[in-house]
């Protein structure tokens, strides 16, 4: 579907429009939301945030212009901003603790904080690289389990495996990653 065709979504019924948006960009938006609030939010909060994002996308379709960029980028920017809002909302509820580093205080970080953050960022990138280098289904198991925070039974159902096999493969994959990153951990 082209951006022009997406602009016609506004002429459809809301149900049809939301259906097509979720089908096309659901995975992308869901991934963004999980990456931002997955560590502190439950499944219901994640789905609620994804819903809010699509509602805003739907109400903003009239403002969207292909000259501004792709629709995917447009949706991505809304998703990131909404995810951050959701994170703050959760923090306000007390469901998670927002550290000074995570929340933007407007103050420049100290040298030690900056160095620690840089080390974490490097290690995180190394971890992601090694996870992506894993063979299937180990890679998917690790991503579902630790990024999307799915239960082993749900992962097993999605991958058409037994839960025990998922747990065993997850254990081996983590051991392998730990050996690879041993010097850096």
């Amino acid at each position, binding site marked *: 579907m082209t951006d022009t065709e997406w602009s016609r979504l506004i002429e459809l019924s809301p149900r049809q429009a*939301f259906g097509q948006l979720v089908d096309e960009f*659901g*995975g992308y*938006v869901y991934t963004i939301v999980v990456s931002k609030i997955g560590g502190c939010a439950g499944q219901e909060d994640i789905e609620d945030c994804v819903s809010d994002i699509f509602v805003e996308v*739907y109400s903003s379709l009239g403002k969207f212009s292909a000259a501004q960029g792709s629709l995917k980028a447009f949706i991505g920017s809304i998703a990131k901003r909404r995810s951050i809002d959701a994170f703050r909302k959760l923090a306000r509820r007390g469901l998670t603790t927002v550290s000074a580093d995570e929340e933007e205080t407007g103050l420049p970080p100290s040298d030690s904080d900056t160095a620690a953050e840089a080390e974490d960022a490097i290690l995180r990138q190394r971890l*992601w690289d090694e*996870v992506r280098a894993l063979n299937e289904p180990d890679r998917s198991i690790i991503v579902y389990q630790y990024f999307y925070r799915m239960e082993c039974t749900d992962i097993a159902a999605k991958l058409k495996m037994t839960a025990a096999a998922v747990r065993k493969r997850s254990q081996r994959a983590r051991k392998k990653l730990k050996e690879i990153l041993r010097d850096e951990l």
Partner: protein
Amino acid sequence: MKKDFMDMLNEPDEAVMEELAESSPLPDGRMKKRIVENCLRKTASGAADEEDYAGGTDVIRRLRWTGLAAAAAAFAIVIAGGAGVVMLGRNMKNTAPMTVESSSDTITAPAAAAIEEPATTHDLKSSGTEADTAGTKLTVTAYVAGANETSTVTVKGQDEVTGEEDDQSGKATEPVNSGSQETEASTESEKELQSSDAPDLTEPDIPVVTFPDGSPQAVHLPNYGAVLSGNWNSIGGHGNRSWSFYAGKDSINPAHGGKGECYLDGELYGEFSYTIFDGEITITWTSGESASTEMKGTISGMVNGRPTDPFDITWETGETDCFKYDHKDELDKKAYEPYFVEGR
């Protein structure tokens, strides 16, 4: 080591995000249905749950007194600025005319004062014409501009006093204000005043100073506008000759003497400068002449309108000639030696 390094498996970069999105658990049937229903409900109820919406900006309550303080400070700055402008305006208004007035004072005020003062204070009597008297006054004015208030005193030669009416027109060719450096110190307008209205001291009717009580009322050293003149007869190598001289004040340092011209038998013999110190009048020739041989004679002057007693002089030879007169011990205010009147 981290407690569980797998907890770091978050916040992927864009490339990883794209890759993960492809294997995202959404949409599966049930989750997609829940999300769509949720979207429809939110849309029907008015956008995305505005009640729970958390914006990116936190509202910070600002203390009320800070606003009041800021307003008061701004008001004070405005008032101070306005007052400063008013004060500046007043100062500018006061100073600008003062500059003009001071410059005009320099040119005109002393001249006017000097014109009137000599005539009233010392009762100068002029035997000349009205125009001549005025010229004398104007000459004084040029000196007043740079120094004390003064008056003009002119001493004439002995012949005039004794009734012989020896015309000293040939002697007094140099005006009282002949000093060039003082003239330079004067303003341009004063120079014009002197050049155009300078007194002609060669005229025989130089004002004669008289004093009501007969006392000299003088100080020893020369003063502005004073002129000493005298004559003598020499018996030296020149034979019995008649000498005369005219001496005006020294424009540089009037207290120390002045400049003069010496005449021999009525003809200009040479120019000189002179100093008066400790009973001696020392002259220095400026025109190269020398009195040469052992001239002796007498000199008398007309000071304060009175003739001085003739005193002997010894004219020594050399570049620096010297009148030595015998009234050294009488060099006080009572002696009839060349006193010069101090103007008041």
